[in-house]
């Protein structure tokens, strides 16, 4: 799945004011100022208008009315970005509220302290930009091949303008007792920060606001009932089947998956040979990092699983054309994967064998948002347990209680048992002989 060939649908968020084909000019003047700086809340882009707002009243998908934007009114009411303005795209990534991210959704517009200590509307009331600092409109916090800027240290006194990392405000040894001068608990917690990211303990669950999509099977898309599209709702109030999208699974309050992470993600790009994990899933986006890299930390992720079209002959992922008019090959108009992929790959300029099959996929989303109050952070025993701990699969680090030295334990235990039996026999013999003597 990709933006390519679906321009006018995807570019309502994937930034580009009027990005309607691949020849789009990405020069800075084409950046839409209002999408971030509108404070009236009336500047909305029509979902299928290539990144343009509606200039007259328009109905989307026969249901939702998008009112014409009064551009002069909006232009007179510009200001700083807000949770709402950022959220217009980011809360809805994946095509709906909370679908893709798992740690960001519309509940963050006015969250409680319980949901997010930083954005707590009645407390700290952070906006996104409080942490996602900008220098000349470059926003911190990307996870592409270059990690989020800023060092893992306090942002002050040498303010380099980057505050996106937790450590920028909290420091590298952030735990401190509020009353006592010395606290063993906090001392030990601070000992973790060289290998464990703050998020690992402090984002104990994801999907805490709204349900988030966990599995998306495109292969079943395109079924109709009596010639009409199907939308079947599940227990979480989210569709479990949708004719356009296929079979969907959702979750709430889910336990993250933990990986070594240095702040960068590696992406499988269109046309690149498939890379699969031990479960046979194609890994589309994976965190980079390893225990040998001092800049890597153990970090929580939402794994987003799916079943997506690929080319079984060339062994590459494919880009289907989803959005378009009838007869254009677009899947959401013609419901034919073969045609949709042929159209999409042609527009992307990539080779396609003509065969389409589906393959299990996974990609990883780093979890940094929706930090609950510290009382909800993970306790020691969440990881320091022999089996079933949160970090059970993490390699390259010795975790007391999880790890052991099997041979030392075996020999030590055997020696103790031998000695114990010896003294028991010795003692018993003494008692028996003692009794006889009497």
């Amino acid at each position: 799945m990709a933006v390519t060939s679906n321009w006018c649908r995807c570019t309502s968020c994937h930034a580009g004011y009027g990005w309607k084909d691949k020849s789009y000019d990405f020069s800075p003047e084409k950046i839409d100022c209002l999408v971030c700086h509108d404070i009236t809340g009336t500047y909305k882009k029509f979902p299928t208008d290539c990144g343009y707002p509606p200039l007259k009243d328009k109905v989307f998908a026969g249901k939702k009315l998008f009112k014409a934007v009064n551009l002069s009114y909006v232009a007179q009411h510009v200001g700083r970005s807000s949770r709402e303005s950022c959220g217009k795209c980011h809360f809805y990534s994946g095509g709906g509220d909370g679908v893709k991210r798992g740690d960001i959704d519309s509940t963050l517009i006015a969250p409680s302290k319980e949901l997010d200590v930083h954005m707590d509307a009645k407390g700290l009331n952070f906006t996104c930009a409080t942490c996602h600092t900008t220098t000349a409109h470059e926003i911190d916090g990307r996870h592409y091949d270059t990690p989020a800027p800023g060092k893992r240290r306090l942002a002050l006194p040498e303010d380099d303008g980057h505050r996106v990392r937790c450590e920028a405000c909290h420091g590298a040894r952030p735990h401190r007792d509020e009353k006592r001068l010395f606290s063993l608990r906090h001392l030990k917690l601070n000992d973790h920060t060289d290998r464990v990211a703050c998020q690992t303990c402090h984002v104990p669950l994801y999907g805490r606001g709204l349900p988030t999509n966990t599995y998306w099977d495109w292969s079943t898309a395109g079924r109709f009932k009596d010639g009409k599209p199907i939308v079947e709702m599940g227990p979480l109030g989210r569709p479990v089947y949708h004719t356009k999208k296929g079979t969907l699974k959702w979750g709430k309050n889910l336990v993250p998956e933990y990986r070594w992470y240095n702040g960068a993600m590696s992406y499988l790009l269109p046309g690149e040979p498939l890379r699969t994990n031990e479960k046979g899933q194609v890994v589309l986006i994976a965190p980079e990092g390893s225990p040998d890299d001092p800049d890597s930390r153990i970090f929580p992720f939402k794994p987003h699983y799916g079943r997506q079209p690929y080319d079984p002959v060339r062994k590459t992922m494919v880009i289907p054309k989803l959005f378009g008019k009838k007869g254009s090959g677009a899947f959401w108009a013609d419901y034919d994967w073969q045609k949709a992929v042929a159209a999409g790959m042609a527009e992307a300029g990539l080779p396609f064998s003509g065969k389409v099959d589906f393959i299990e996929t996974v990609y990883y989303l780093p979890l940094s948002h929706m930090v609950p109050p510290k009382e909800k952070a993970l306790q020691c025993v969440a990881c320091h347990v022999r089996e079933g701990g949160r970090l059970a699969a993490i390699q390259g680090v010795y975790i007391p209680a999880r790890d052991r030295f099997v041979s030392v334990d075996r020999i030590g235990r055997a020696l103790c048992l031998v000695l114990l039996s010896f003294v028991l026999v010795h003692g018993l013999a003494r008692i028996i002989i003692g009794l006889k003597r009497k």
Partner: protein
Amino acid sequence: MKQRLYLYSRFERFWHWTQAALIILLLLSGFEIHGSLEIWGFEQAFYLHVYCGFGLIVLTAFAVFWHLTTGAWRHYWPVKEKIPQICYYYLVGIFRGEPHPFEKRPDQKLNPLQRLAYMFLKLVLFPLQFVTGVLLFLYQWWPKLGVKATFSGLAYWHLIGAYAFLLFLILHAYLATTGRPWYNHLRGMILGWEEVCV
């Protein structure tokens, strides 16, 4: 003829029993941290282990000072006499009602086997556990202290030390019951006075 001797001074008895309690708590909490036991929960076990560990270090520091200043360290000086006889006694003689080949006296309270065992305990096991334990605790300071070690490597040696302590504890507790009557040594260690055959 039996004689009551004052063998263990007040400090020695305090030291011995405090040390015993600390070592038992360290073993229990340590094996819980290692994941072998479940008693207090990992977090509480960790705190207990650290506090007991530092307690034992402080106690040992006092004990070292006491032994050096009173000259009591001489009791641990190894001698090679009678070692075979003592081994024979514990394997055979004890069952025949023979007397212990070693004669306890206020100026030689420990038999040659005890001297070796306690010497090993104090010169090898205590330092091993103290050094590995303190380093594991000071994990974040290694770069400043110039320590080049791995966490798992230290944990490995600390665990071996723990099993050695456990073995010592089993044997030591059993041998404490081999007096005549069986509680004679225990009573001596509690009250200070022990009945000794002269």
